[in-house]
């Protein structure tokens, strides 16, 4: 359990790992995540499940190298095992027939959007996927996501591929022309917030998957608390998906920035060591 069997760079600093995790693969459901510790001295970090194969007993995760722990994770090679892997975690997305669903993945939100789009389409929904990134080289998993979508729309901030602009631009056009039943958006916090603001006046049910700091990720520590509809929720066990129109994004952003300085120091320490 835990052995890495495939390591594939998807873009500059973006890595896909396929890991043997029979139980996780067997229990995995749409929209869940895992917690990893690359080494005994690492932090516990949550990463969305991108894909799983119950027959092979493997899971796939995609992450971007940004800080110490993701650098540590990227340093593991095929045949090695992360120190700890726990999952699947979080409430699965309720898979049923909603009708016309728009799945939006921004940057590192594309990997989890893939299994959500797949699950919803298998349940008989019409799925429009919108994926976006800063620039063409960061548009990952295009073919895969396209293969589970009825309609597939792509944009880049700099116009280097697909439409020029943000996913919200594409979405606002759709909002005028289609009768959308559900929107699911995963990506950077400002993107999710912008999507929520766009769909709110239309009264369209909108779900976002939040990425607050986590520690144990089993409902024990409370660091992942987020304000949703004025109530305190724990993203690890009550989420990570919430009604976008109820989420207090300002609170989330503030809490995400809590350890900026420590994160920088931890990364320096790791760089000095290797």
């Amino acid at each position, binding site marked *: 359990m835990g052995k890495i069997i495939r390591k594939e760079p998807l873009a500059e600093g973006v890595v896909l790992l396929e890991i043997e995790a029979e*139980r996780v693969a067997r229990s995995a459901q749409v929209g869940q995540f895992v917690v990893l510790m690359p080494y005994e001295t690492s932090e516990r970090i949550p990463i969305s499940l991108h894909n799983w194969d119950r027959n092979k007993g493997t899971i796939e995760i995609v992450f971007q190298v940004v800080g110490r722990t993701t650098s540590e994770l990227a340093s593991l090679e095929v045949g090695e095992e992360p120190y700890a892997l*726990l999952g699947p975690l979080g409430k699965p997305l309720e898979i049923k027939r909603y009708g016309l669903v728009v799945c939006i993945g921004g940057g590192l939100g594309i990997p989890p959007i893939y299994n959500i789009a797949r699950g919803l389409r298998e349940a008989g929904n019409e799925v429009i996927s919108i994926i976006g990134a800063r620039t063409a080289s960061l548009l990952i998993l295009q073919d895969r996501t396209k293969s589970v979508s009825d309609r597939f729309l792509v944009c880049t901030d700099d116009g280097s591929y697909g439409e020029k602009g943000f996913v919200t631009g594409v979405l606002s056009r759709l909002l005028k022309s289609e009768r959308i039943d559900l929107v699911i958006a995963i990506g950077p916090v400002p993107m999710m917030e912008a999507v929520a603001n766009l769909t709110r006046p239309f009264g369209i049910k909108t779900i976002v998957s939040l990425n607050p700091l986590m520690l144990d990720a*089993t*409902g024990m520590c409370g*660091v992942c*608390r987020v304000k949703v509809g004025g109530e305190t929720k724990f993203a690890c066990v009550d989420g990570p998906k919430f009604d976008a129109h109820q989420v207090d994004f300002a609170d989330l952003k*503030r809490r995400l920035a*809590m350890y900026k300085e420590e994160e920088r120091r931890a990364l320096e320490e790791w760089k000095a060591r290797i």
Partner: protein
Amino acid sequence: MEGKDIEKRTPIPERPVGERVKDFEEVSLGYSKEEAIKEAKRCLGCSRPLCVEGCPVGVEIPAFIERIKEGDFKGALLKIKEKNLLPSICGRVCPSEYQCESKCVLGRLGAPISIGALERAASDYGGEAEEESNGPPKPKRVAVIGSGPAGLTCAAELARDGVEVFVFEALHQLGGVLRYGIPSFRLPRAVIDRQIQRLKDMGVRMEGNVLVGRTIPFSDLRTKEGFDAVFIATGAGLPQLLGIKGENLEGVYSANEFLTRVNLMRADLFPQYGTPIKRGKRVAVIGGGNVAMDSARVALRLGADEVYIAYRRTEEEMPARRVEIEHAKEEGIRFLYLLSPLEIRGNEEKELICRKMRLSDELDESGRRKVFPTEETISLLVDVVVVAIGQRPNPLIPSLEPRLARGREGEILVDEEMRTSLEGVWAGGDIASGAATVILAMGMAKKAAQSIKKYLGISSRR
């Protein structure tokens, strides 16, 4: 023996304050063999020992103390282990003063026997007192969910009667609250490691990184995974928060988070270890239990200049162990009574605004004097706030298994034999009782183990 000696307790050696606040090594040094024998000799060996009645697991206290009197520490340890399989832990963290020691006849003459410290001495000097196993393994398998005090106790009780036991733990290290909740200056990690190794030596299989309910569906345990019985010991993990403005500011922690960062993730060794923690210069801890004391003393060891404990009643009502309150005071923690938090303002520099409370002569359901708010408020300037006002039962398994009957606080309802509403499923420890102590959890786990053995048709040695 001189009457005087009976009145006076042999002091338990501790590390000097100036030294101990700088590290996470154990504060209490425990008795030497000679000191333990001296203290044991104070025991009157009552024929109807009340201390035993005060022990939730019924350790035969005079009998083990008798062996210490004779210098037979191994014999003492074996005697304790007949009833308590985690003596090295209980000897350190049991609130003995409220249990066995509170019943000791010597308490009326002077000070009660220091039973907790003698239990620790037995475990420190008793060597590796071998477990007797009760014949070859029985073809019965039991799943224990959670590796805290209740889970470990139930596993040990079953294993020594030959049951095949599998313990599943969600975290990457075993020990549950012993590991993430109790700091090493009260319970050294080596003591936990040794205890867990002993259970493994007895044949208990333990696996971390398994969250039952998610990694393995709960209902699969009895069916697909083929367990004959299940014991749920998932503890009281869910932190209670204050629900006041400013609670989500950076540097405001639940005690669970604060302690887990240090105890389990070693944030005290950041950046060698990757998990950070805000090292406040001025820290306020809210609450009056052991968890509050632990949080305050951890904050001090992380380098705080000023640590306050703000409690809504007075010292008399504080639920923490006396010895921990004393240790905290010796270390310079400042106790502020009759304060209830109202709001936290600011950002890095915070203002914790508290309402002053007053005690009335009226008693509440718990028999404590009721507190009332006054109009007055005070504010404390701090940079870190730790909220230690209690935990609720971990909600995961009950929320995924609607057939499990639950109580008002979300605890799993059990009968007198710790059976849940589901056939073949038992629960014990804080998941069944709400937050309590290590020894109470163990008492419940023992009861459950007896009941499970009966259910499985296995005769018990005891």
